[in-house]
């Protein structure tokens, strides 16, 4: 009985606390600007462009980190607890985002799956199992590396922001349309620049660059990983050396978070040039998204 009485006292305290917190949360919600948190900087940067001065933007994954493997920290949940909108990459890349959103205890946050209107590449047919490595069953999730998909994301964000802030819906829509034009212009310029390369096949470490390659006329001849998420064997690397030499490949595009020993080996054996670039931009600011795309294209095209 003593224990039960203590429990009831504790429950009463918690109920009072919950009501207080609920009141406080209600009072602070609906501030002047929309608070947006995105899984990656690229979506956050597009949100900054579309939202302009009507949004306050942050991202979860750090610049240059592996978005497949983000460790969920309670501080991320606190960040999302204050958010009006959460932007997910989708296609099972940022499955960790659900844990952050649930853990935020924010019942009002609008979750936008930014992959909703894009056309996924590399969508497997038939059954997917571990033999194919870390394959995403709904398709390759690195779609933001085609700026034309960035344009589609911008339209999605304009619609979502417009619902939450109807007074500025026309502004969001106009900025998204202008950004779409900008994305298409950057894409056209990139395709022209890479069309001038003598060899239009590249090697990549992981299939992060499928959309960039497909949209600019490049072909990914092979990946250093034999299948996604599995590190290379000696035999696989030797096969890659033969492939690089036979087809005169010049560039290996690799993410900074993968080990460099395979790239070093390939460079020694075949003279392959490694371009180390993050698949994501390093800032949430407007303009960062397209600047990063231009930088990747420039690094591939560099002599």
């Amino acid at each position, binding site marked *: 009985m003593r224990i039960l009485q203590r*429990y009831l006292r504790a429950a009463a305290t918690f109920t009072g*606390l919950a*009501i207080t*917190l609920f009141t406080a949360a209600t009072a602070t919600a609906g501030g002047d600007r929309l608070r947006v948190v995105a899984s990656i900087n690229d979506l956050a940067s597009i949100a900054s462009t579309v939202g302009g001065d009507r949004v306050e933007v942050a991202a979860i994954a750090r610049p240059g980190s592996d978005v497949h493997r983000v460790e969920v*920290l*309670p*501080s991320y949940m*606190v960040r999302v607890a204050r958010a009006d909108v959460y932007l997910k990459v989708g296609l099972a890349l940022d499955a960790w985002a659900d844990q952050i959103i649930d853990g935020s205890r924010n019942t009002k946050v609008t979750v936008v799956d930014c992959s909703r209107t894009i056309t996924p590449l590399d969508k497997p047919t038939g059954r997917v199992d571990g033999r194919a490595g870390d394959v995403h069953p709904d398709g390759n999730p690195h779609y933001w590396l085609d700026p034309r998909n960035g344009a589609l994301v911008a339209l999605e964000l304009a619609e979502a922001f417009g619902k939450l802030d109807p007074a500025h819906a026309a502004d969001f829509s106009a900025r998204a349309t202008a950004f779409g034009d900008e994305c298409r212009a950057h894409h056209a310029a990139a395709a022209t620049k890479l069309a001038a390369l003598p060899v239009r096949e590249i090697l990549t470490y992981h299939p992060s660059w499928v959309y960039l390659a497909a949209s600019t006329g490049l072909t990914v001849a092979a990946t250093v990983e034999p299948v996604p*998420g599995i590190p290379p064997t000696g035999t696989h690397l030797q096969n890659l050396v033969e492939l690089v030499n036979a087809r005169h490949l010049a560039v290996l595009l690799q993410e900074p978070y993968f080990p460099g020993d395979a790239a070093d080996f390939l460079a020694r054996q075949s003279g392959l040039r490694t371009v180390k670039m993050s698949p994501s931009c390093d800032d949430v600011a407007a303009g960062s998204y397209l600047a990063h795309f231009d930088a990747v294209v420039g690094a591939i095209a560099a002599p």
Partner: protein
Amino acid sequence: MPIHALRRMPVLAAAAAVILFGLPPAAFAGAGNPNLSVIAQPRLVVSGNPDDPARNRPVWDVGETEIMLDDYLNPYVRGNVVFSYAQDGGLGLEEGYVDVVRGLPGTLNLRMGKWRSGFGKLNPQHPHAQPFAERFGVLSAFLPGAESLNETGLQASVRLPSPGDIALTASADWLQGDSFRRERASSGLASDPLGIVSGNGDRATEPRPAVLGRLSAFAPLGDRSGLELGLSAAEGTNNVAAGTHTRVVGFDAKAKLWRSEQSYVVLQAEALKLRREDAGWDGAGYTSAEVAPWGWYAFGDWALDPRWDLGASYERWQQDTRDPGWNRATGLFAGFALMEETTALRLDWRHEQPAALPGVDEPSATDTVTLRVIWSMGPHKAHQF
């Protein structure tokens, strides 16, 4: 292998057959089916324990195999079920609970069902997630429950207001309380209820609730590292007829410090204080004698890169007697992931020096070496890279 475990093998085999062969391909797409994972950790053990019949001989053990299912029930509730099979414990429901994650006022969350209680940092963790093979002695000795403090009940938790990105969480559990029960040795007196009332002398089958509370804080250190501090307390009835209680209070701290993009160090420690009233019978009525030992553990785990880690542990805990001596244990451990998160080898050495009883020489220390092979199928990986 015990007979009861053999009897349950067909159940496990049937479950495995359903998992491996029975689901149509569409099930793997996740449409309408919960996430399904299997994690196993068969082990090779060499123990110098003089009480172990397999002393100093390598012995294979199937370890603990867990079958996990989790998914949303609806937009507000998420469910989790964990079945586990152990060589000496058979197949059973280790956890089965639902979390109401949204729809409640403010930051209130509710959990209902059976789960590994959130006392400290290690108790809620499944063994496959721990870098060392054996549960620390201080937890085994002081926390109620056989393998862990694992109870059925209801939990309410709230996120408290805090500055910046600091996460401050408070939770209160109302639990069934069966883990707290302790069997009393009969006094041998003719009037002792244990000898008079067959099977339920101390009203041992009467339920008595237990309570558990926890306050935890996480503060980010830079953009990736963090410091966690927690305070836990639990109380329950260990003998209904005598009205005696067990109370445990614990403090825990964990720092995860990233050294580079691929390498980090975890430093973790917990201190526990047990205060237990042990019931007795003196012929006229129940008596109560209090024991109040304490103890602590600390370990460090250095992840050299995503595939390699090594670490060390140390712990000291008092015997739960009126005249407590100190038990001590030292450990070294290392892990290696064969390729990625699904398969890992973990090697562990533990040296334990039991406490000396009053007036008796210190007993011999024991050394145990364990090699675990931890593998997983499904979305829940053997460990996180």
